[in-house]
């Protein structure tokens, strides 16, 4: 075994010291590789970025046009000081990637956020063989097992159709990047128009410029006629739900699409009418399958129920450990701002949801 691990956990993020490259650093560094454009993974302040072309476009739109980002294709290797880096589809959101790191025959993979289900907008997750796997485990407990997405979309359609028939607007809270487009793509568009909040409209525009095909949608403005809402599906970040923004849509029913909706407790305290269990993360079975398919001898769990998940892996004979990261699910755009302890999620053993309501966008 080498004296320094190929990747290590530092106060700035996951670091490859040989190449001096950080993966999704949470402080500014010289060189960063970004797994996906959600703001807890893609942050400004670094000198040079490497990412997929979709992530690059999203980062320019979300963080700044001035960022120095080099785009590479999935599978295209980049050599830095003898270390070979490549990106592989993670299935989390458009542009999302796992990072494969190879040096002198030793392979590590950092998954970033990922899911095993197809979502209709992101390339399918690609299993990558490795010696050491760094995996997220946001939903790393056996209580989180997802149904087939089409069953969930049947539920969403049924809710929307029922509302539309009664002239009730359907307002669904979904993260503006990823979940929003997944919902738009999955629902039955014959029921009514799809109207979106400005934050969602911005992401839609960038993704369409990147070549993603989306169904027809309208940006809600102050000129949107009231009657337009009657049979509409409104897609909005959770932050807008409690504001006067929704007043014009009355009467309306509220829903949330997130893996956290699996738990009745989350649903009930979120004060929404309907919770749909639709996640952009791997469920328990998906995590175990990924660990198995990677062939890894060693697994490092980050981001979620890390202690419990790694303890389980050890109980079935794997070499597994938990590491602390600052990947949260909070997002400057989409989270409510009234939570004091919301800047990051550093609890290694519990959910990364210290910040409050379960709009938990990336879930």
């Amino acid at each position, binding site marked *: 075994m080498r004296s320094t691990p190929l990747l290590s956990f530092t106060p700035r993020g996951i670091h490859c010291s040989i190449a001096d490259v950080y993966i999704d650093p949470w402080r500014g560094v010289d060189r960063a590789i970004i797994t996906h454009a959600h703001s807890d993974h893609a942050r400004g302040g670094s000198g040079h970025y490497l990412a997929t072309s979709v992530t690059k476009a999203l980062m320019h739109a979300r963080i700044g046009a001035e960022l120095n980002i080099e785009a590479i294709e999935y599978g295209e290797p980049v050599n830095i000081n003898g270390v070979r880096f490549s990106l592989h589809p993670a299935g989390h959101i458009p542009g999302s990637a796992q990072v494969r790191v190879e040096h002198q025959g030793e392979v590590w993979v950092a998954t970033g956020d990922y899911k095993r289900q197809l979502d209709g907008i992101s390339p399918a997750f690609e299993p990558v063989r490795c010696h050491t796997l760094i995996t997220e485990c946001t939903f790393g*407990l*056996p209580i989180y097992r997802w149904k087939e997405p089409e069953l969930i979309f049947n539920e969403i359609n049924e809710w929307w159709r029922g509302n539309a028939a009664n002239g009730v607007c359907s307002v669904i809270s979904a993260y503006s990047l990823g979940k929003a487009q997944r919902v738009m793509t999955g629902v039955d568009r014959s029921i009514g128009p799809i109207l979106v909040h400005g934050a969602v409209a911005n992401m839609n525009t960038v993704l369409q410029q990147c070549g993603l095909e989306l169904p027809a949608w309208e940006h809600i403005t102050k000129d949107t006629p009231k009657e337009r809402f009657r049979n509409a599906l409104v897609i909005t970040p959770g932050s807008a739900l409690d504001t006067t923004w929704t007043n014009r849509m009355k009467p309306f029913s509220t829903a949330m699409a997130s893996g956290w909706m699996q738990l009745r*407790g989350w649903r*009930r305290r979120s004060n929404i009418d309907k919770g749909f269990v639709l996640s952009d993360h791997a469920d328990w079975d998906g995590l175990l399958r990924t660990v198995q398919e990677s062939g890894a001898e060693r697994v490092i769990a980050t981001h979620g129920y890390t202690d419990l998940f790694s303890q389980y892996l050890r109980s079935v004979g794997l070499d597994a450990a938990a590491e602390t990261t600052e990947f949260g699910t909070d997002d400057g755009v989409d989270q409510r701002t*009234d939570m*004091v302890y919301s800047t990051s999620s550093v609890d290694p053993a519990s959910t990364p949801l210290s910040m409050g309501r379960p709009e938990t966008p990336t879930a």
Partner: protein
Amino acid sequence: MTREAALFDALDATTSTTAKVDALAAYFRDANDADKLWVIALLSGRRPKRPVTSTQLRQWAAEVSGIPDWLFEASYHVVGDFAETVTHIATLEARMEKSLTEWVRYVEELKALSESEKAARVKTVWAGLEGMELFVFNKIITGGFRIGVSQKIMVKGLSKATGVGEDVLAHRLMGNWTPHNSSFQELVFGANEGDDHSRPYPFYLAYGIEGPEGTAAGAGLNDLIPLGDPREWQAEHKWDGIRGQLIVRGGQHYVWSRGEELVTDKYPEFEALRKALPDGTVLDGEILAWKDGSALPFAELQKRIGRKTVGKKILADVPVVFMAYDIMEHEGVDIRQRPMSERRALLEQIVGAATRHAITLSPTLPFSTWEKIVALRDDARTNSIEGLMLKRLSSTYEVGRRRGDWWKWKVDPLSIDAVLTFSMQGHGRRADLYTDHTFGLWHSGQLVTFAKAYSGLTDAEMKQVDAFVKKNTVERFGPVRQVKAELVFEIAFEGISASTRHKSGVAVRFPRIVRWRKDKKAADANTLDDLKGMIR
């Protein structure tokens, strides 16, 4: 059970009371009578006896899910509900279809089986149901059926569907009935109403006098003035015992607690009242531990509450009395619609004739001004009194909690500043949040636990404290986390007494969080000696 699963899904899928009532009404209009009766039973706290232990269920759940026991346990603490945890972990193999009535019978029949047979049958269901149906089955088998729908909402829905008034239904649904000894028609339409001598009336419950902030805090003279002319009111002590309803009908007597529990056998003192009170009498009052003409502390009464059978010694040590304050039935006639003043006169006459037995009359307090009421309340804190009751002399005896004619005005709670020491995840809508807190007071440089409190914070504060706990865990004891001594909270409580059962040497009643003292550091919190100084 698909119809009921759809109902519970619909109830779960809305935060609007109107929508819940409508969903229940729709169900009560078209479901079959036997199943409807079970829904009423389950939502009014009548469920089959628990046929299995929670230890057995946990073991079987770990077996069927193929995960280690500790992981099931950890999952349970995240979900905060056993029935729901099993629902998430179980995997559907072959669908089973039965009506709600058949499922209840299935659960009831388990009771007599051997453990291995029980295990086999329960596991079969776990593999044969999913989603809400499985959740409902698990709720029935685990013996709790709290699913966020109150009995009141259920009654509203039932009333809407049947056209029978809510108050009438609330009365009919009380008492000893079970789906085995009644039918939907009998229960709801009162076909056999006269048959059940034990049936109690729904209790009339008062709201608290509210201060300037809409809570009990700081209520004073200004908050009494809106009640109008003091001469239209009657004042009594608010007794600190157990609310009870005493029924004498058909030569028998029955005692009901406010929780709709029949507690006749726990208080043999009242047996003599069968003869001492006229037949066809129903009284509202307080059961108090009472000796030599005065009340004993609530802690003494607690010794009686927990017991199924009462021996000679406890009867001699802690005798009880029925402190009567209202009468709902006289000579077999429901007199709840007569004014308080008339009922009071009758009560005085009836109880006055029986006082050599374990019954006494709650005295009315003389006053002519609201200023006097303020003064009476200031003097009210004793062993057995927790404040005042104000009742309008013209008031009828209502059903449930109502504003307007009856008010309670408790003495201000005691309170102390304590440090958050341990925390555990909550249940229900607090699942996966650290909300069940333990608090300590300083003693010789150490924090000594003195109370647990779960309520009193706003939702936003609750989430902030949850985040604090997760970030400041010092040590874990299973699901319990010890946290850094940093946060200070003002803890209020109703009563205080010395206790040998508590490490602190003090027992407090109804502890709850009043406010988060962000202005205080842990070192500024109170000491155990400060608390002991409050015992008198």
